[in-house]
């Protein structure tokens, strides 16, 4: 088994916005896509922020590539790409400006930036004209694609996504799901995705981590969760989603 690239070891976070977290231990191996799922308030976004170093654990640790994570070091930060709901684009910059913000800061030349922009636009399936627009002039799906491009600009080791499709209408959402999954497969990066939607989690990730009140309740594939739920909570969580999703006919 390969060594984990990113790891939570007994991480505890108190007084966070969501429930008190922890202790939580999860290992993320290079190239795998993991989905953190659970109802709102289960602490999944807080876990993502611990992984990213936006929050520091009160106990335990976060390790990246075998070292303790030093989130204050910008170079360490650049090994992560982070995508939030709605894209989190800076309204004062165009799409291209958002994507090239950090590359320019670290000294990339215009040619290199232009090349990278067209690579990323192809990957995220974004119309090149949209890059010249400001976020207020972009559709929700376009903004989310630009957000993905920005996260990937420096070719990070880890991609973290917090409810990336949460704010989109169903059609845009289905389209973007396909494109995202293909992009993840092409890139072969370690991806951690937070969602409250079991169907979406299963669509992207083979490995699902179910959270409740800041603790890991169960880990495994969707089949594992359905076949052998760890407790009543998981079985009800899975059941509720299956009922809804089967009605919609979209569960694979």
């Amino acid at each position, binding site marked *: 088994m390969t060594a984990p690239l990113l790891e939570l070891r007994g991480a505890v976070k108190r007084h966070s916005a969501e429930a008190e977290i922890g202790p939580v231990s999860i290992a993320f191996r290079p190239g795998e896509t993991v989905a953190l799922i659970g109802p709102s308030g289960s602490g999944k976004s807080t876990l993502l922020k611990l992984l990213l170093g936006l929050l520091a654990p009160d106990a335990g640790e976060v390790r990246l590539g075998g070292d303790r994570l030093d989130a204050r070091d910008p*170079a360490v930060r650049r090994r992560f790409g982070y995508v939030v709901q709605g894209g989190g684009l800076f309204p004062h910059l165009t799409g291209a400006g958002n994507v090239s913000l950090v590359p320019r800061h670290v000294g990339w030349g215009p040619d290199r930036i232009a090349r990278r922009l067209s690579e990323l636009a192809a990957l995220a399936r974004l119309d090149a004209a949209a890059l010249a627009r400001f976020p*207020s002039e972009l559709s929700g799906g376009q903004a989310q694609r630009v957000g993905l491009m920005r996260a990937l600009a420096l070719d990070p080791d880890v991609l973290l996504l917090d409810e990336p499709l949460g704010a989109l209408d169903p059609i845009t959402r289905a389209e973007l799901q396909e494109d995202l999954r293909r992009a993840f497969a092409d890139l072969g990066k370690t991806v951690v995705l937070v969602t409250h939607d079991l169907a979406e989690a299963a669509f992207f990730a083979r490995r699902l981590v179910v959270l409740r009140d800041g603790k890991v309740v169960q880990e495994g594939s969707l089949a594992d969760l359905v076949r052998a739920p760890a407790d009543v909570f998981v079985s009800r969580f899975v059941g509720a989603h299956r009922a809804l999703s089967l009605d919609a006919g979209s569960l694979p």
Partner: protein
Amino acid sequence: MIAAALAALLAAAGAASGPPSVRVGSKTFTESIVLGEVAARLAGAAGARAEHRAALGGTRVVWEALLRGEIDVYPEYTGTIAREILAEEGVSGEAALREALGRRGIGMTRSLGFENGYAVGMKEEVARRLGVRTVSDLARHPELRLGFTNEFMDRADGWPALRSRYALRNGDVRGLDHDLAYRALAAGDIDATDLYSTDADIRRYRLAVLEDDRHAFPEYQAVFLFREELARRAPEAVSALRRLEGRIAAPRMTDLNARAQLEGVPAAEVAADFLAEELGIGGEVAHVALPARLLRRTLEHVALVAIALAAAVLAGIPLGVAAALRPGGGRLILAAAGVVQTIPALALLVFMIPLLGIGARPAVAALFLYGLLPIVRNTHAGLTGISPELAESAASLGLGRAARLRRIELPLAAPSILAGVRTSAVIAVGTATLGALIGAGGYGQPILAGIRLASIPLILEGAVPAALLALAAEGAFGVLERVLVPRGLRARR
């Protein structure tokens, strides 16, 4: 010892470089300004480079300016010196006064020939109807409403002395501006006020001057006070001043005041005519045409505002950033800036005088302090108002703290910061008119003179350009906003 030698050296150096300079000051009322103008013209005729810093402020301001050497000469009254300036020493008699002044390095001329004491005045018809002839008679009418100038209310030789000497029991006593007091008297809003015994307005408003039968007020002989150092530096100027001793009788002074106050003749012209008639001293009255006056005042005003605003921006934005980054210290910064804002503008200006003297410097300092809060607060609000998602996205990017501030947070806060600067600018344009009270020039000068002379055109000469300048500042910021605020932020609004 060394200081004295240095001072002598400096004085010598000053003397070596052309004619000596003589700076005359005056207080904010017509007679003082006319006398100041007379002194400046006399010194000029005696070969000095004379300058009149007219209408600097009240007694304290002008006296302090004299002590600090910001002015060399100003007209004063013996009663004011004894009862107000040197009140703690309890001096009486001219010799004692000279002695006490001498210890401060200040010399005094002999009386110019008239007395202009405090007096109490009422409308003639009211006084006649009530049979009030003396202040003692006034004491029998506690129902009368008294309105006194603010300085009179506060001065030891003013209202406190009058009240205790005559045991006045009037319930309705309030403080107002000297010139407004006359108008309130005429309009019947008050029944009696303090006045100066050579005031032109006594004739204009047909006032009865009540006899100070129990001598509450001391003698107020008009004199010039000057720095003794001036007698060494510019002896001709001082002896020229002394030529005025005993030359101005009270009715003459009232005439001069009436010309300036009632006929609106510029003080310079009144002074020039007086000197020509009385001492045969000719001299041009520099007549400055309206466009040139406006231009000079605009430059003064814009300079006050621009320097203060630039300093407020340079200090305010970093303070706002610091306040946003460190919530603990931030509260302190915001509270301190808020406290400064609660000080009335006039008080802030006066606070600056002991630190920075008179003129443009204290005015700029006060405007700077005043302009700080809107900028600090809006910078703080702009930075802390960035939505949590954007703040998080910015934090996650892998930019250093400074780069994050420069590339993301400050541009996002730009509309708010600019709005703060704009508020500051408009406040500064308005507040700078008060700068004229401490000799800073600008549009406040004609406004103050206009209030003094009850001249609407003069008030408008200052008020209209000040309003236009405020509008121009608004317009300029509209343009600036288009340049400085990123397009993506403007599109949303």
